[in-house]
């Protein structure tokens, strides 16, 4: 709900109006628990520097009620779509801040993870990069993407996923979403967020948190 962008409190009424079911991510967990850091899982000092700026900003700009509500959210949800049992988590079923990148989440690993967690599809996010892998067993793993930051591909739109039951199995569609990114950039500047973050919104390329990217995702990146 918070992290990179401005004015996290604006999210709350939108979730309520849309009756959106949410789960806890590492941000929500940390904010609710009053932790000192976002527990994003970065190792590089530059990444941690910028992670701290966004965490402090979010921390300051969320009301105590909002934070308390975050603490009531579950860390996983099971949703039935047609015949399919979906498991929704933030990072992975094992850890709230585990990174599931496409190039480092191999098929045998995912098959075992789904066996252990008894589901037909696993939906995760956290990395900021969307992908979908249909496993040989017919099950699906989807990194659903994020709507708070573009996907480091030089495009300003953000991504979400549409999941539906279809005759032939689970329908998975990764959907790009254009929005008023110039308006967001202006809002970020007026809130005093770092120019590095604004640049990402304006160009679609990440300028921070690059150290966590595996070789393949890093090679596709501009910085």
């Amino acid at each position, binding site marked *: 709900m918070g992290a990179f962008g401005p004015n996290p409190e604006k999210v709350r009424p939108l979730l309520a109006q849309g009756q959106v079911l949410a789960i806890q991510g590492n941000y929500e967990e940390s904010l609710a628990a009053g932790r000192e850091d976002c527990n994003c899982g970065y*190792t590089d*000092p530059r990444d941690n520097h910028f992670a701290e700026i966004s965490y402090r900003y979010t921390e300051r700009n969320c009301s105590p009620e909002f934070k308390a509500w975050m603490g009531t959210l579950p860390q996983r949800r099971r949703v039935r779509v047609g015949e399919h049992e979906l498991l929704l988590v933030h990072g992975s079923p*094992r850890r709230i801040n585990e990174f599931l*990148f*496409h*190039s*480092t*989440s*191999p*098929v*045998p*690993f995912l*098959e*075992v*993870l789904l066996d252990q967690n008894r589901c037909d599809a696993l939906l995760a996010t956290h990395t900021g990069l969307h992908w979908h892998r249909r496993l040989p067993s017919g099950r699906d793993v989807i990194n659903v993407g994020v709507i708070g930051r573009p996907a480091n591909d030089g495009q300003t739109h953000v991504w979400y996923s549409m999941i539906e039951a279809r005759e032939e199995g689970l329908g998975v569609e990764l959907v790009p979403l254009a929005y008023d990114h110039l308006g967001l950039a202006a809002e970020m500047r007026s809130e005093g967020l770092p120019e590095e973050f604004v640049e990402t919104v304006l160009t679609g390329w990440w300028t921070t948190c*690059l*150290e*966590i990217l*595996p*070789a*393949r*995702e*890093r*090679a596709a*990146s501009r*910085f």
Partner: protein
Amino acid sequence: MSSPEVALQSLDTLWFQVGGTVCNLACTHCFVSCSPTNHTHEMLALAEVRRYLDEAARLGVREYYFTGGEPFLNPEMETILAATLEVGPATVLTNGLLLDPGRCARLKALADASDYSLDFRVSLDGWDATSNDPIRGEGTFERILAGIRNLHAAGLNPVITVTEVCEGTAGDAGKERFFTLLRSLGIERPRLKILPVFRIGAEAERGGAYESWQRLREGEAPDGGWDHLQCSSCRMVTDQGVWVCPILVNEPEAKMGETLADTLGDFPLEHPACWTCHVYGVSCRT
């Protein structure tokens, strides 16, 4: 006082001592004491690697690391990588000396053909010949840089790993010197990892061995237990069986079995090197 035990949370990372203990260098800080004549562990053959890859896939291993010695001394190394990249991402730790342009082009083709990441770590122990060569050997600085250049020219961007033997590396100024060096090679997005030294093997003679107080003790576990140690999620395959981790391959008591299934149990953190892992937060993550 007795030593604490570390549980294997999940076998995520499988290492292969693919080059054995044979190396074309004999660095003064090598904690495995590798050299051209050290045959304590021999190179792994493709067939052996395949057998472990099959077992690893059944267990849901997430990533594979290759080390030695020098992996590229193994004549089957490229085929081994191709086989690995069919089941998961691979990272090779190399000294960079055998990375000629032809090999780099083939490695790039392997990376492009896989769904999974292929990554490289090249060891360097100084920002010039004066700092690096006394540790890694006469003339190695220029040869390592040539290897890094060749990888970069082929479109592969390695992580440069530096140990704290090179004085001043751990501070920001030291890191900046490496970044400057790498940028001067035309690498716009330099990647760097600093590693602590393990005071065992050749390093025990160079820098001194562990002192008796440098041990982990029961009751010292941090809040999250010992899950921050890499042995809570890794194992190491050599030609002689499966070891607990890539650091203790010269310790007979760190051998846990012949198959991966033999090695899924707890391990006592008795060795002083375990102290370094804990205190410095050693992980294989970049």
